[in-house]
């Protein structure tokens, strides 16, 4: 079955950059972009056990008459055929469409509810967090300026979500032919513990074959160590893998990464079903 990426298009310069990132991602790993041009300022996403209302900022409704043509131009400029456009079929209320959630990826800017002028690095909107928490698909958080990536970097901390992220990283590396690097910050676990997790999950062989370098930080602050992550890498990481209370107390790795790295991020939530 063809894999598809959902992209909510905004017809602005920032929206153009985000769609360029999406299209590049699709081209690199062979995914079909599916574009939604919103007609209303809000929509619903019904997940398996949650319903998220996404309230868009008003810039998503900019110049609807040129939006479709612009989106086609951007996708074609990356050498892909004309994209499919998604028209919502179901409406919870007359101005509240339901967007399907049976996609393989979804692309979001760091926030989709706040005006682009308010969005900075380190700010991840509540709607985007909700999507990451509930979706079965990974979410591509695109940077604000288009930048092709030439390698894949996985943040591996040993949690169940990190294993899922690693599996996804291996798949993307295989599909794109780009090198894969792993980054681990040692905490209470040793390097051997991580190796054991890899053995238990039967990933050792794949890692031996595909991983270019496994960087283990055994000292220093995690945020400082992130400087070693290549600037032109697609960074893949798991999110919300430690439970709400623990993350409230000690902070989330995902939050640290997204507030430090300007790279494109591919975030794997707790509901994502990893496939090799």
């Amino acid at each position: 079955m063809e894999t598809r990426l959902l992209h909510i298009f905004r017809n602005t310069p920032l929206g153009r950059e985000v769609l360029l990132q999406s299209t590049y991602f699709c081209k690199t790993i062979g995914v079909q972009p599916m574009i939604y041009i919103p007609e209303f300022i809000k929509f619903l996403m019904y997940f398996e056990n949650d319903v998220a209302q996404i309230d868009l900022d008003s810039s998503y409704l900019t110049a609807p008459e040129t939006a479709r043509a612009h989106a086609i131009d951007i996708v074609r400029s990356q050498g892909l055929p004309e994209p499919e456009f998604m028209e919502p079929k179901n409406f919870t209320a007359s101005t509240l469409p339901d967007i399907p959630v049976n996609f393989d990826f979804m692309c979001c800017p760091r926030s989709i509810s706040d005006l682009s002028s308010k969005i900075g690095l380190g700010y991840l909107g509540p709607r985007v967090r909700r999507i990451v928490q509930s979706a079965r698909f990974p979410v591509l958080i695109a940077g604000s300026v288009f930048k092709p990536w030439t390698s894949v970097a996985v943040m591996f901390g040993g949690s169940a979500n990190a294993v899922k992220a690693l599996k996804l990283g291996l798949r993307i590396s295989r599909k794109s032919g780009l090198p894969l690097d792993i980054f681990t910050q040692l905490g209470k676990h040793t390097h051997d513990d991580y190796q054991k997790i890899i053995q238990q999950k039967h990933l050792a062989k794949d890692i031996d074959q595909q991983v270019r370098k496994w960087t283990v930080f055994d000292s220093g602050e995690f945020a400082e160590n992130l400087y070693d992550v290549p600037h032109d890498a697609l960074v893949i990481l798991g999110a919300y893998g430690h439970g709400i209370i623990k993350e409230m107390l000690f902070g989330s790795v995902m939050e640290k990464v997204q507030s430090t790295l300007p790279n494109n991020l591919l975030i794997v939530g707790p509901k994502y079903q990893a496939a090799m």
Partner: protein
Amino acid sequence: MKFFQALKAGRFPSWRLFFHFDDRLLLISIGALVGSCSGLAALALNRGLITLFELLSHYRHLWWAFVLPGIGAALSSLFLEKIMKEGAGHGVPEVLYSVSRYGGLMRFRSSFSRLISSCLTIGSGGSAGPEAPVVMSGAAIGSNIAQFFSLNDRQRVALVGCGTAGAVAAIFNAPIAGLVFTIEVIIGEWTALNIVPIAVASVFGAQVCRLLQGNQIAFTHLKFNIDPVDTLACIGLAVATAVVSILLTRALRLSHQRAHHIKLPIWVKAAMGGCVVGGIGFFFPDVLGEGYHTIGSMVEGTFSNGLLFVAVLVFAKIIATAFTLGWGGSGGIFAPCLVIGSFTGLMYHRFIDILWPGVTWVNEGCFALLGMAGLISGILQAPLTGMFLIVEITGGYEVILPLILVSAISTTLCHSFEPASFYMKELVEKGHFLRPRTDARVLADLSVEELVEKDCIVVPKDMKLGDFVKIMQKSHRNFFPVEDEHTGEFLGLIHLDDIREYLFDPFLYETVFLEQIMDTQVETVGLDDDLSVVLDRMDAANLFSMPVVASNRFVGMISKATLLDKYRNELIVQTHH
């Protein structure tokens, strides 16, 4: 959260018997919690309405008081649109939609948004009722508690029902009406799995209400001596209530359509509608607000105005309700139905009293009660709800015989003219109203993606017929999709029946290419198409299978045989308890 998930998974042995052995116990326990919370929500709205009404009562006699409903409706609309970011309306169709399509998934904000907005609309004098907002609130509470416990779709729907029942039971102090309304209107499925927790929730909702504001019935309990002639006269009343129900339904829809075509911000439209209501209320104060006080005086027989005035009130209340709800105010139609129904009953009583002055009719209050039942049954097309609600809110069974007669006839007549009830009309028109165990519901839970058969051999357009014959011998299929070798684009289909004449002529094997004999006018299916639509297209074209194409690429075939297999499996899943 993890604790509850572990609890559910039966990791604590002592709890295993209680929660894991039979999930009905789990549902009953959580249902009681949901019923109590819904009861509290209903009570909060009730108190809010009383407070606002008392606050504004000092200004009602002033000449500018007609703008009060306008201000209330505008604030209510602004609150929903700008703060809550929800649409206007009473919300019951949203509950039905979520139960039909998404196993009762509802947003958390819906558990309180309608309470506040309807309080503003009704408290300021808008002609609407608090019941539908409370239903939405209760349903959302049930849904969110179910989400918290990570329950499955079926259990979640039952808890949505628990929320609804608890709310209705609390707002009317009528537990049986809460149960019956939920099963008849919201869930649509009379099974023990649903009925037991919903009944418990209903009890808890009503009990919370009784604890906090006393065990009061809405209207005074009166004894009526009903003769056969009164029962006979009820047939005419049923016809009258059916006519008024249809009028109200159409007035609401017309008003909504008219307002929709006016290009003004929604809060301005709500304010305009509210001012019209305020204007009507200036001359006929009985049309303002929920109107329970007016109903009370009619039931007690102290409403002294004449036939013509009551007839005018029927139309004034219909217009006021249409302007309140159709133009963007927030609230439900339950209370307006009760008011209009009692006006209709009173009007009918006075009419037959003039027509047959020699007959001793039962007290006019009885006809007011029967009129309420007739209107509720007609508008909601839910006769049991109409009957039990009236029995419970008046505290007596004396009127049960004519009540059944009026409810049954009114529902039947309304159904002839309006096949779908007020709550369901829009959903039915869009094909979103899917009751459990129906064909549409089973098909809605299946997707094209689940049914795609991928064991087809795709052939290139420039393949020679001879090569194709060799491939054909290895396949058990009659269909062969053809695609462009370079672009992967789907070009057409080869069906063995269509090319049989070429297959037996070896001379053509080296001279004919597939491109020349393929069928290019093929009906295709998309991955996101609804199965009911796909099935209709198959029937219309007399096809047994169709190619599934996405982004101009062949994905697989979909056939009626596979559909039947999956349909059966899905039916077993949906009907298994």
